[in-house]
């Protein structure tokens, strides 16, 4: 929203107020960073609260109820507790790398969040290579998990990190292939262009526009993104029952909080990616009836976007608390024997769809 390519009232105002273009650019960049941090860090406690409530209601419980109205202050109390804890590394750990990992893990979600178009003019940077950038940057997550597990000097951490490395590298392929499918049908790799290609009624969203393929591609994206997120049923890296937490077994206090934060910001970024690529981004679900559409169009685009993101996050939570974790070999078989051939087939069928 702030760089010259994306016009926005606030950015234009800053550019007007500061005559030197370089300084104005820096000021805008600062506003962008603050906005992204506010969105990411501010929504993480809300998501943790939501996760606890969703999980509780699935299991016939109530979840946090005591602190604040229906337990709303519970996550804030938890974060406070984590921040005031002493930070220490196990003896024999590679201290530098050990503390580097939780910082690296936060890089990817923030960078991806900068690519997401939240509204017509609410985007930090409109890269023309948005999708390849997202795929490339997601690799930071694997890197952080690998070095975090390796530096902990703990066999459970190392096992978790190795398993997770194998898993994420495998699932990155189908993740990239599904995004490639979207790029192919929309004809652009820029996330803004992909969103704009879905303007119109609800049937113009990529999930519905291509008869069956769109929905299948969405399911494929859903499966591979769960693996990318390292959430159950693909939480091989954590595997609490077998590996006592996997790569972040040895982390505590602030460092653990950063891993936890990264998990939830990742949830936001992947959900926003899903709503950008398949659910029409910031466009309202118009149904073609004049009277209803005028009402729907009055709601600002970023609220539609937020609604879609929350819906996606809820879907991820339902899946997390329903399905069981597959074994490592089953996980690999699912990727290499099912998802990858299916995605290649999908890509070919998408090409046929474009041709005719």
């Amino acid at each position, binding site marked *: 929203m702030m760089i010259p390519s994306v016009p926005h009232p606030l950015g234009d105002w800053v550019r007007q107020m500061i005559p030197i273009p370089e300084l104005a650019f820096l000021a805008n960049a600062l506003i962008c960073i603050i906005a992204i941090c506010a969105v990411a860090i501010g929504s993480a406690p809300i998501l943790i609260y939501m996760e606890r409530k*969703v999980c*509780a*209601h*699935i*299991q*016939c*419980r*109530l979840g946090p*109820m005591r602190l604040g109205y229906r337990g709303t202050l519970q996550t804030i109390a938890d974060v406070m507790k984590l921040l005031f804890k002493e930070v220490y590394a196990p003896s024999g750990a590679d201290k530098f790398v050990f503390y580097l990992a939780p910082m690296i893990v936060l890089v990817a979600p923030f960078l991806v969040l900068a690519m997401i178009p939240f509204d017509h003019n609410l985007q930090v940077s409109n890269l023309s290579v948005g999708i390849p950038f997202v795929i490339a940057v997601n690799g930071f997550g694997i890197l952080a998990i690998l070095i975090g597990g390796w530096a902990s000097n703990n066999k459970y951490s190392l096992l978790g990190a190795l398993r997770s490395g194998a898993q994420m590298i495998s699932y990155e392929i189908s993740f990239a292939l599904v995004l490639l499918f979207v790029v192919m049908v929309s004809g652009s790799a820029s996330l803004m262009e992909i969103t704009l290609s879905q303007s119109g009624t609800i049937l113009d969203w990529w999930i519905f526009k291509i008869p069956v393929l769109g929905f299948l591609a969405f399911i494929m994206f859903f499966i591979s993104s769960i693996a990318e997120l390292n959430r159950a049923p693909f939480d091989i890296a954590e595997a609490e029952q077998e590996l006592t937490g996997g790569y972040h077994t040895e982390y505590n206090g602030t460092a653990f909080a950063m891993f936890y934060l990264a998990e939830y910001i990742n949830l936001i970024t992947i959900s926003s990616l899903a709503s950008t690529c398949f659910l029409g981004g910031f466009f309202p679900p118009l149904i073609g009836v004049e009277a209803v559409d005028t009402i729907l169009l009055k709601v600002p685009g970023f609220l539609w976007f937020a609604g879609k993101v929350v819906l996606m996050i809820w879907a991820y939570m*339902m*899946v997390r*608390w*329903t*399905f069981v974790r597959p074994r490592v070999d089953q996980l690999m078989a699912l990727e290499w*024997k*099912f998802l990858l051939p299916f995605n290649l087939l999908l890509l070919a069928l998408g090409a046929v769809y474009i041709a005719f």
Partner: protein
Amino acid sequence: MKQPEIPISPSKYIKRYLKRCITGPISLLMGLSVTLRYFFNPKRIITEQYPENKKTLKMHPRYRGCLELIEDENDENLCTACGLCEKACPNASINILKTKNIAGKKVLGQYLFHLGSCTQCGLCIEACPFGAIRMNQEFELSSESVDSFDLILNKKEGRG
């Protein structure tokens, strides 16, 4: 233990693969339907907000609380002091002190129950041939003194 490899023909393998492609998603959707039903039905929640709903809290009928003798309105019980519950108790929480009534018949004098060592296993209730004892719904049994855990359950001497 390594399982022996069963040779499988390619056509069989593909058939099994395609079958799993269909049955797998169906079974996943069945699981999801259960959790969705739970999620959208708040009546299923069984958590009790205990100190707040103390007035309205109703324990489940099969809850095992403190042992008590079944007594009628005149505080008369059915116990015959046979001592089967005392024998059935795995950690000797029950002591039955017998006495003789005016007719010289052996009856229940005092039914001593040590709540502190009771594990609420319910074996005494199963052992009782007369259905004279049960476990009530009382669960706020904590106390500051150990002595208060030694209870005398009967108010009146048994009738024999």
